[in-house]
């Protein structure tokens, strides 16, 4: 059987719950991303950063392989069902960010979960997303300071949202949530 089958149904559904609940936030971010990219495009990175949340919360709470990717994937599938308009965008972002977060956690062999590892994946995610958007939005036409701020915010966004995610994960642990699914 595929590797994910080693995860119990309860872990899968916990991922789904995290995905759906944070999906509400992403939906909010999606709603303001249009106006933001029109009015203050250099702030876009800050808004886009919210998409790291599902994976961060899932990893911090459950500390298991695959949970980041699965949470992202389910969040995207559910979001696509509710707002089919953005199917492509949801799936693409989910796979990209989820795979990056999994990769970084895999480097720690899923045994080490220090906060800095999360922030490293946040920076990698920021860079990886900033590049295509750099081209799509033709940022090289911005003044130099604009380019710097733009790229900086693509890093700052995911990092800030990662900090938020870690705080949420820690709060949930304190509240005794998902004890049996944790490791």
């Amino acid at each position: 059987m595929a590797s994910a089958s080693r995860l119990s149904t309860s872990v899968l559904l916990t991922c789904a719950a995290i995905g759906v609940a944070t999906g509400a936030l992403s939906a909010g971010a999606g709603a303001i991303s249009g106006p933001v990219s029109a009015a203050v495009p250099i702030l876009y990175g800050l808004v886009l950063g919210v998409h790291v949340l599902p994976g961060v919360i899932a990893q911090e709470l459950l500390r298991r392989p695959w949970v980041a990717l699965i949470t992202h994937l389910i969040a995207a599938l559910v979001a696509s069902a509710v707002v089919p308009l953005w199917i492509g965008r949801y799936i693409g972002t989910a796979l990209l960010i989820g795979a990056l977060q999994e990769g970084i956690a895999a480097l720690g062999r899923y045994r080490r979960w220090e906060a800095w590892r999360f922030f490293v994946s946040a920076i990698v995610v920021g860079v990886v997303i900033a590049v295509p958007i750099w081209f799509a939005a033709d940022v090289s036409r911005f003044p130099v300071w604009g380019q710097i701020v733009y790229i900086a915010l693509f890093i700052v966004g995911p990092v800030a949202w990662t900090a938020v995610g870690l705080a949420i994960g820690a709060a949930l642990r304190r509240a005794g949530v998902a004890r049996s699914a944790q490791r």
Partner: protein
Amino acid sequence: MTALERDPSASAQAPRPAGAADPPRAGTPLLRVRDLAITHQGEDAATPAAVRFDVAPGEVVLLLGPSGSGKSTLTLALNGLIPNDVPADVEGTITVGALDAAAATVAVLSTHVGMVFQDPDAQLVTGTVLDEVAFGPENLRMPVSDVLDRAEAALRRVGLWERRGENPDRLSGGGRQRLAIACALAMGSPLLVLDEPTANLDPQGTEEVYAALAELVAAGDRAILLVEHNLDAAIGFVDRAVVLDQDGRLVADGTVDAVLRERAEELHEMGVWLPTSALAALRLRRAGFALDPLPLTPAELHAALEASPAPASAPLSTAKPPLLAEPTSDGTPVAHGFGEKGWSGRTEAHHLANPIITVRGLSVRRSRREVLHDIDLDVPRGEFLAIVGANGAGKTSLIQALAGVVPPPRGSVHVDGLDVGRADARTLASRIGFVFQNPEHQFIANTVFDELAHGLRRQRLSDAEVRERTEALLDRFGLTAKAQTHPFLLSGGQKRRLSVGTALVAGAPVLALDEPTFGQDRARADELLGLLRELNEEGTTVIVVTHDMQLVAEYADRMVVLADGRVLAQGATADVYADAELIERAGLRMPPLAQALRAVTRHPDLARIARLSDLPGGAA
């Protein structure tokens, strides 16, 4: 309940040994539990501990025990969810058919043991009724035609085949729980295990579920193991009862007659919930009525009373005066039971002169539809008021408007002189406290202490005073030892007490609760109601929305009946219940005790009693 008429001789046999001669029940038992002890991860005591019993084909077994005795734990172990999904240490053996549960997977066991859980919504996975029932057989890799055959058979048995194409969301609560039963049937398992299947349902839904179960029982091809606190509805078709005590040990295993009728007193003392009619009969026995065998249903109690002469030793006249008698001038508390300050102790005029809440011309709109129409209401100070009505009648909308959770139109609601429509949250909190159905929703701090202190800090009190008053409250609610615990880590009953505490901390004279006992077990419900009664006796005005008609009868001074967003009736509880036709019209049911006593001709003094505490015999 159609099953009430089942042949009582079927259940009157002695406990069946395994492999009894009874032809359809011959052979090995479906389920054999031996010396079962289960310790949850992180707990030190086993609940259940050392339990043994069998379930034979076609049998209906009721599993009883006080809260925390391990009933749910036991049911989860029967199909392997414990220890496979919920980590726990399992000792002893469970044999399902010919399978040793410890050696089999949950998937294999699921074809032998079908499960129905408490919350119907937590059992839905797919988009249509048909897909839902097909889900299990599909997981078993059955061919499509077999899947459809099974799904059809199961849906027809619970009466949902006509609605197979609908989204399960459209079904009522009872409908969704019948769907869950169909899903369990479709697994093809000969044993069905139901853990409090009606705890989340309103009376109508409960009736639907029991009608469906009664039909299953009548067909006789499935054995049922039932955990249920709502015995009034269930007792009619149960063959046998297995009882656990507080420590999870087996204390009784036998027929309903041998266990429930003979040992009722003992079970009651252990904290096992008994049918209302049995509780009433125990009390009446103490008053000298000869009620033998012990009646368990309203119909049985009614029949037994009609057959029994009035006791010579304890004439009814020494008991509490019957309801609706002339009010006594002094209202002296009667020595026994609760309800001292019942309806007979006060006069209507005295109350209404000084209402704490007045509602005038209240209309409430939700999503552009008017759901409450022109409500006028007075709530006298210091009363215990119940708001009842069918689903969607507007109870929640009304109580939320009273408490300002959803601000009502200006001038329509006044609480203690304050216009709720204009008040800000802080002022409002000092007049009326609101307790939400799920306590977790209203917790905002990280410790129990801060949770209570929040309301005081908002009043800008000095730190010393906040500390002092918070500690007093912690003590009062029995939470001192938990002061530094995260609110989410409390037990269900403790969470509920804390939520009541947070609503009261600002000193509000009124407490409003929306379905405070919905989905709760009896022990917790009783604990909460005891607390509410205490507060009420100290002068707090209490308003509850509830579907539990017996609760209303026991605790409420007054009740308001809503139907379609209008007040159908309001008044003293006994007066409202006196009009059976009106209760029926509102889509409600009479409380079980009133059902049993209403038409008793032989003892006219009993005929209008609705509360257990008003029955004679309570002094014992």
